[in-house]
């Protein structure tokens, strides 16, 4: 008779990678639905295109590397990359934007490094940065939320815009973005960024229609939905609370200080936390188990660093939002964070 002897830690965690990834996808559903409501059918097409591209490129890359393609496809990690990138880009971006982004993310950011678990950068954010740097016009053409816009695009019209860059009746995305008063409507953060450089004060800018509510029409609910999804992930113990809380504190604390010093130039903490990609980034992107820091203390530092970088880029950088850059820069710091936050092994070292 033989006893099964396992060494410590005796942890009972039977979750496979595919389960973890499936939970991440399920938790993203509320956010995706809210985005669908405010930004139209485009979100759906971007998701479909992204998923098909991700599966195809992952399969081809694995085939070239002589790895079993089907087993790796089943772990859902490519799916998560695809979904994260698809919900980060403007819903009416032309089809080739998402295809290039996902293909680059899977091939260059993931498979070239050796596949799942080996990548040092978050693949979805590498794809996003490639797109943002290469196609700035397409990547910043966010439509105003549906409740503010007078042209509701049908399913067919949306498809037409994504494939041909024009609606059947000949409107370009740029024209669709223009409101009834002839002014192009941008995202709340973009409005603030360009407005401040033109010499407006914050109180003038937040009086605009995109800022109805707490932190911008549509965007605040998108963020709330991702917060709900993130709380589900926390409850299921898919992610630990250190990184998300670190990101939120990292954004909110400097925003609070700056806002109280210069209330007409610096956005307040609530607006920062509930606009742009804050919640999506805090709960879904920064918590990527492969490219994030590993110890709890390290996760705190990692999250705070991301939050601080996001705030810095939004306030003083050239881009309205900076989640992707912040995550990549923090990914770069992970080896050094992990080195200095390694937990002490019981019985070795320590202060005693």
């Amino acid at each position, binding site marked *: 008779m033989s006893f099964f002897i396992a060494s410590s830690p005796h942890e009972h965690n039977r979750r496979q990678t595919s389960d973890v990834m499936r939970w991440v996808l399920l938790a993203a559903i509320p956010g995706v639905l809210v985005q669908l409501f405010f930004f139209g059918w485009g979100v759906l097409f971007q998701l479909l295109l992204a998923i098909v591209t991700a599966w195809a490129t992952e399969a081809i890359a694995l085939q070239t590397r002589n790895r079993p393609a089907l087993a790796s496809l089943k772990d859902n990690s490519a799916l998560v990359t695809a979904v994260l990138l698809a919900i980060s880009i403007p819903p009416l971006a032309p089809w080739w934007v998402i295809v*290039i982004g996902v293909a680059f993310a899977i091939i*260059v950011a993931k498979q*070239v490094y050796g596949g799942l678990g080996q990548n040092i950068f978050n693949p979805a954010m590498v794809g996003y940065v*490639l797109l943002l*740097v*290469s*196609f*700035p*016009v*397409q990547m910043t053409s966010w439509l105003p939320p549906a409740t503010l816009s007078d042209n509701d695009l049908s399913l067919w019209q949306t498809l037409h815009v994504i494939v041909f860059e024009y609606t059947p009746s000949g409107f370009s995305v740029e024209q669709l973005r223009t409101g009834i008063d002839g002014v192009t409507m941008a995202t709340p953060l973009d409005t603030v960024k360009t407005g401040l450089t033109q010499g407006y004060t914050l109180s003038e800018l937040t009086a605009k229609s995109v800022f109805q509510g707490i932190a911008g029409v549509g965007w605040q609910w998108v963020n709330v939905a991702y917060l709900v999804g993130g709380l589900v992930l926390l409850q299921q113990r898919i992610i630990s609370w250190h990184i998300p809380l670190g990101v939120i504190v990292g954004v909110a604390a400097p925003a609070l200080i700056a806002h109280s010093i210069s209330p007409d130039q610096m956005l307040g903490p609530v607006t920062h936390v509930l606009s742009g990609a804050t919640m999506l980034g805090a709960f879904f992107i920064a918590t990527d188990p492969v490219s994030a820091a590993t110890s709890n203390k390290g996760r705190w530092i990692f999250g705070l660093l991301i939050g601080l970088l996001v705030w810095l880029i939004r306030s003083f950088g050239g881009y309205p939002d900076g989640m992707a850059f912040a995550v990549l820069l923090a990914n770069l710091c992970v080896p050094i964070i992990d080195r200095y936050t390694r937990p002490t092994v019981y019985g070795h070292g320590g202060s005693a």
Partner: protein
Amino acid sequence: MSEYQQLAKQGLWSNNPALVQLLGLCPLLAVTSTVTNALGLGLATLAVLMGSNLIVSLVRQWVPDEIRIPVFVMVIAALVTVIQLLMNAYVYGLYQALGIFIPLIVTNCAIIGRAEAYASKNPWQTSLFDGFAMGLGFTCVLVLLGAIREILGNGTLFAGAELLLGPWAASLKIELFQIDYPLLLAILPPGAFITMGFIIAAKNVIDKRQKMHAEQPQKSVERARVTAQ
């Protein structure tokens, strides 16, 4: 393999300054956004490399070991200044396009590396040829990198060739396809790094394949011997 064949193989492939030694990456990555720029800088580097190898090899008997590096640097700097003035005089457009990277050829480690590793120990004939092979290898990689980046970023090849070769070369420009939105990343420095990585990977794959092919016949011989026993 004769000495010259050996040198040619080293410079162009097995010890290529850009792909294997990874020397001179600064100009390599900075100016290769078009084939024309790449070719211009490649030829300038080739000329400097041949000249410096020749001179260093000729004076090697009289240079004390202790101060050889400053002497090499002086030789290279003088040659680069000559090249810079020549380019200023005859290919002014390209001179302006390459800008600071022409004087920066002085700091190209591939040049001082060859002076130190080869020219200071070998007669002038082989040193001159070594400079030629290394420079040609460097130029080839520059042009390849420039071509890939220009195609991805602009959809063209040989754009602005008239800057280097005179007015007739304007017709060399090939418009492969028309892009409304160029892949800006390919033109920007990160694109150069990523493309360079892929080129090095491709070279390693080719080397690995060749090695496998070279090993195969040996194995079959071994097997034949075993069955014969």
